[in-house]
């Protein structure tokens, strides 16, 4: 049943999903072909001027021990009444603006202008995983508003990698070619809220891309999550970054107290391993005390590999 929900779907007339027979469970990144590549820190964070990791979040991995008691899924806590108010920026807003967006890794993130089926417009974020493929949230490429004129695949998405306000260092490219899965497009289930944008150029070969992979729970729970994207509560088209330790996971989602705002749907939730960046989830929802994204698991990984081919 779960596997069926990950059945890849496309807005194109015919699409074959090719799954490679044997693959390692992570895909490597690429820094692109030109420009400057910023080095990540040794602590799983990006080195960003002005960004300071909150004291409470600086827990050494050596001090972390897994809980022995059976803990409730924090996602269940978010859904059951009575419910605290859900916010996407939790406590002090410690997002910092990225201005060197023409450099790797920042240019991997793209500002999106989305035109829905009825012409309604939205903004979101996506990130390159290959020369012509960006990953984003399912609700960015397929709007689930049954009975409303904007329901269904969006008309088009203008993709602007490394955007910095009015500056488009890599120009823009418009896509009308999208991917998602039945769990989102048919069932509207937020546990399957992921998709992809296929662009008609190989611009990702210039910007570079992130790797992505699936890791065990214990590994993710000791990981620092990084998010950089294009929030609507900041000056238009500006890129903002934040990072925190991963709060919790379940088989389909990752939860984190990384500040975001509307417009960042589709952002990569990524980790740094030996200086290389790997997506671990696709940011999609604001929540009570944590935000959440669709976890990259085996079937998600398989679809992303197929979509980047």
């Amino acid at each position: 049943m779960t596997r069926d929900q990950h059945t890849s779907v496309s807005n194109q007339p015919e699409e074959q999903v090719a799954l490679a027979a044997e693959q390692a469970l992570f895909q490597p990144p690429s820094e692109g072909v030109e420009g400057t590549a910023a080095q990540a820190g040794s602590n799983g964070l990006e080195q960003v001027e002005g960004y300071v990791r909150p004291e409470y979040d600086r827990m050494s991995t050596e001090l972390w021990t897994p809980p022995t008691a059976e803990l409730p899924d924090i996602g269940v806590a978010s859904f059951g009444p009575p419910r605290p108010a859900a916010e996407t920026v939790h406590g002090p807003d410690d997002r910092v603006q990225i201005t060197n967006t023409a450099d790797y890794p920042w240019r991997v993130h793209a500002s999106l202008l989305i035109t829905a089926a009825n012409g309604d417009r939205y903004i979101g974020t996506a990130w390159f995983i290959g020369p012509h493929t960006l990953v984003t949230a399912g609700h960015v490429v397929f709007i689930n508003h049954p009975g409303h004129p904007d329901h269904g695949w969006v008309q088009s998405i203008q993709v602007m990698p490394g955007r910095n306000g009015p500056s488009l260092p890599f120009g823009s490219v418009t896509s009308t070619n999208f991917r998602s899965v039945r769990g989102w497009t048919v069932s509207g289930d937020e546990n399957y809220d992921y998709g992809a944008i296929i662009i008609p150029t190989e611009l990702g070969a210039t910007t570079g891309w992130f790797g992505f992979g699936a890791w065990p729970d214990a590994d993710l729970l000791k990981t620092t999550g990084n998010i950089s994207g294009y929030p609507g509560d900041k000056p238009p088209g500006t890129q903002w970054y934040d990072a925190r330790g991963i709060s919790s996971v379940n088989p389909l989602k990752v939860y984190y107290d990384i500040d975001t705002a509307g417009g960042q749907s589709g952002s990569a939730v990524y980790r740094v391993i030996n200086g290389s960046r790997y997506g671990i989830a696709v940011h999609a929802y604001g929540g009570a005390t944590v935000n959440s994204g669709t976890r990259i698991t085996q079937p998600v990984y398989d679809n992303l590999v197929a979509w980047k081919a």
Partner: protein
Amino acid sequence: MPHSDRSTHLITGIVEDATGRPVPDASVYLTAGPEPYPDIAALSAADGSFTLSVRGAGAYTVQCRTPDDRIGEATVTAGGDSPARVRLRV
């Protein structure tokens, strides 16, 4: 684990200035609600209108930011079959 098999509730509205004129190209997004909600932002149309959607019924805070840095905010209760209407004044 949480599974969504619930209806979508729409939040529609208009962004307008102090004189009541519509404001286009404002980004409109949710900042608080009773349940997780999509972290996407709408852009107000030429007539100031916008549409957002949520799954859980209840009170949501809707905020907007115009290209010239004006902020508007209001609370709206979503639920039922009819869209919840909200007016954001900047």
